[in-house]
């Protein structure tokens, strides 16, 4: 393992993308970052800009108005990047899943817009489940070469 790969695995910075949800999953992500779990001991840190991030954590069903922003944020994350969908809405659409007739306002899951690498189902998932998902994302990040 080279020095860049080693640094990447030991400090995976995450960017939290909230694409139209009920805020339940966002509160759980904040709980995972808080001192009770303290993910900063693994070097996981919440960053304010997608340009600094390695992992994109997306929550919520995507409204149609928000699709260009999701694409833009995804393109701003530098390679190699990993996307984690947290919550049932981001994973599969959940209550907003509609195929016929299609919902006029809400598109559905995040993977309809951007490629998702790890799915964490739950409504809302416990902080442990989110950390478990991010650990899997770090393992994927290790395999991807930027």
């Amino acid at each position: 393992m080279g020095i860049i790969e080693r640094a990447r695995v030991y400090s995976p910075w995450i960017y939290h993308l909230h694409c139209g949800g009920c805020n339940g999953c966002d509160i759980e992500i904040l709980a995972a970052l808080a001192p009770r779990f303290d993910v900063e001991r693994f070097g996981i840190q919440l960053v304010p800009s997608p340009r600094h991030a390695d992992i994109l954590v997306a929550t919520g069903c995507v409204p149609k108005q928000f699709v260009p922003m999701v694409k833009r944020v995804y393109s701003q994350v530098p390679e190699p990047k990993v996307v984690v969908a947290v919550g049932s809405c981001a994973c599969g659409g959940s209550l907003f899943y509609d195929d016929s007739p299609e919902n006029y306002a809400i598109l559905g899951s995040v993977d309809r817009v951007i490629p998702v690498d790890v799915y964490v189902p739950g409504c809302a998932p416990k902080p442990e489940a989110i950390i478990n998902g991010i650990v899997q994302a770090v393992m994927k990040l290790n395999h991807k070469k930027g």
Partner: protein
Amino acid sequence: MSTEFKLLKRVLSRYSTPMTLNYPSSVVPERKYSQIPSGLRGVPERDRDKCIGCRACYFACSGRATEVIDEGNKRVIDIFLFRCTFCAHCQEACPEEAIKLTERFEVAFPRDEPGAHVSTELDLLTCERCGRPYATKRMLERTYERLMEKIDPLVKETVSNDYRKLIGYCPDCRRANSVALDTHTKKYVWLEGV
């Protein structure tokens, strides 16, 4: 006084453990998980021997996570965990108590893999007249048992006979051939006068 208290506090803090949980690496459950209350709604589990394939969970599902796929002589009832909100409506609706929500919540999937589905496969009966698959055998048996439990003794024998005649046909064939099979509901009108 306050100095002594501070000293005591400092001495005691040497023996206390930190608040932070040692999450993925700890082996002791008390130091690993924050709080797992009893009755935590996690991943649903279906007992294959109890399930009768009545589709009650499909109609009760709030997130449209449950799907029923009839293909050939097989009925597959499938819960897609990506869409499941773990609301336990299926557990409430199930007449046979086959679905139960476990306390397993640590789930993360890299993609749409078999682990993200809770599916059960059941055999379907085919109609004797038109050859169309219509219901599972176990569901018809259980319906008969439940029907006989609470039925009025006056019509018990008639209903029992009719049920045995009808059991091999699909709903459309039952309606079309009700006169030929002597199962038409009109005969109950005469029974009322008795």
